[in-house]
């Protein structure tokens, strides 16, 4: 078996077997669809409810991507500041940790009350969830510079700016991309959790809101369909960030070159 067959074929086969088993059991025991819908029914619901679900998917994706962009911009900016000054880092880093360890469900109601625009409130919540890996990984990366190269830059009287651009940023890239991958997943989780909290106010229309509503209405097939779309969004995001890392690092970094040689 080739490596590609193993990597993609094997999980696909497992999925197929599970779905077939699921379908067979539901049919055999005549399980009502408001408890466990069959995969076929979920598939049909995906198609019939697509106008509604696609809008929700777009909304959730929008929140997720905006939050990820915000986390990257703000997180990288903070990392730069931290690296320039130990005092600033020592003063601010504990608060970044505080934000990280406080569950977003606990903060979200406050943010939703304070920020009038629901969409902005959701993005803010998801950004808070997603930002920490970007901050910590970028800071670590910007500091993880070969001391010999740092000496070389000093020897040639490189400016702070040159050292940042030509040495610190490239050195930080592998760390940054590892953080980005974690953050992308967290941004989606943050978006979904925030929607759940905001959804009780009845204003949002993302996938999480569909799940909440479907649960209340016992429309379990639609609940499963929405769940499927969230999972799919997560997989796509993770794959995209992995590709981005590969594209940026394939020529030189061990993490990305080992795979194709």
């Amino acid at each position, binding site marked *: 078996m080739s490596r590609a067959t193993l990597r993609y074929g094997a999980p696909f086969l497992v999925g197929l077997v599970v779905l077939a088993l699921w379908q067979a059991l539901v049919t055999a025991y005549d399980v009502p669809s408001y408890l466990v819908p069959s995969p076929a029914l979920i598939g049909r619901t995906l198609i019939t409810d697509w106008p509604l679900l696609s809008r929700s998917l777009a909304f959730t994706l929008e929140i997720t991507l905006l939050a990820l962009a915000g986390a990257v911009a703000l997180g990288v900016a903070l990392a730069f500041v931290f690296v320039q000054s130990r005092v600033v880092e020592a003063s601010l880093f504990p608060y970044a940790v505080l934000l990280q360890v406080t569950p977003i469900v606990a903060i979200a109601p406050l943010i939703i009350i304070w920020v009038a625009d629901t969409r902005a409130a959701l993005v803010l919540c998801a950004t808070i969830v997603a930002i920490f890996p970007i901050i910590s990984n970028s800071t670590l990366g910007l500091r993880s510079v070969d001391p*010999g*190269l740092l000496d*070389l*830059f000093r*020897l040639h009287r490189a400016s702070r700016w040159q050292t940042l651009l030509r*040495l610190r940023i*490239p050195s930080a890239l592998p760390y940054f991309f590892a953080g980005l991958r974690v953050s992308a997943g967290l941004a989606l989780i943050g978006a979904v959790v925030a929607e759940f909290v905001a959804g009780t106010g009845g204003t949002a229309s993302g996938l999480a809101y569909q799940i909440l509503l479907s649960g209340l209405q016992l429309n379990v097939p639609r609940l499963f369909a929405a769940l499927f779309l969230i999972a799919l969004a997560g997989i796509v995001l993770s794959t995209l960030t992995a590709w981005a890392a590969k594209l940026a690092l394939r020529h*030189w970094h*061990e993490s990305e070159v080992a795979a194709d040689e």
Partner: protein
Amino acid sequence: MAAARPGHVTDRPLVVEIDGAEKVFENGLRALAPISLAVREREFATIIGPSGCGKSTLLRLVASLATPTAGSVRLWPQGAAARGSGRVAFVFQSPTLMAWADVEANVRLPLDLEDGAADRAGRVDRALSLVGLEEFRAAHPRQLSGGMQMRVSIARALVTEPSLLLMDEPFGALDEITRARLDRELADLWTREALTILFVTHSIYEAAFLSTRVLVMSSRPGRIFAEVAIDAPHPRDEAFRGSERYAGYCAKLTDLLSAAADSGSAK
């Protein structure tokens, strides 16, 4: 060529003048006792000594990568370099290359860091040809062997056409055969270029093969224990390595080095 026997030439201009330089680290460790040392133009001066004797520290002082706690380190104290650019280049223990950049970009780095360096492409070409790496300009460091990476590192040092080349155990991590070849190439390079080299190694054989003068250091705190002029003509080749004269120098350096180590540990 004329520079064949520069061993005892004291009328050449000073390149490095170290006057009572001392280094005590912040943690109180005394790395260097007051050291005085002069290196003159076209010398190939080598410092050998046991591990931790402060040879690297001494080299860092000369490169201004560290400052002496007392005393002074001056380059070209008699005025501008008579020959060459008056630049200093450093070759580190490990190749210290930028993994994300190809060979050409790595070699060009010192020129890129300088504002308005002229004829970058030409100088990079020349540096690459000096170490025989023209064909590998597009390769990334990870694709090269340890010896080739070290060559890139040397090309990067040569690209600024330095007058003083500082080398901190550059071939220490290489296998014996590669090391011997690079030693030979370095000896050639020194003969052809207007270079003054201050070299650090813990290999007696390398020191005896390359140098015009060897300084033996003892440790804790580091100081110059003895000095040996290697009075053999350049360019040196494998015949010199097989000669009795070379064996004599190696034996002498071995004795001095163990005496230096004893003097250090006796304290």
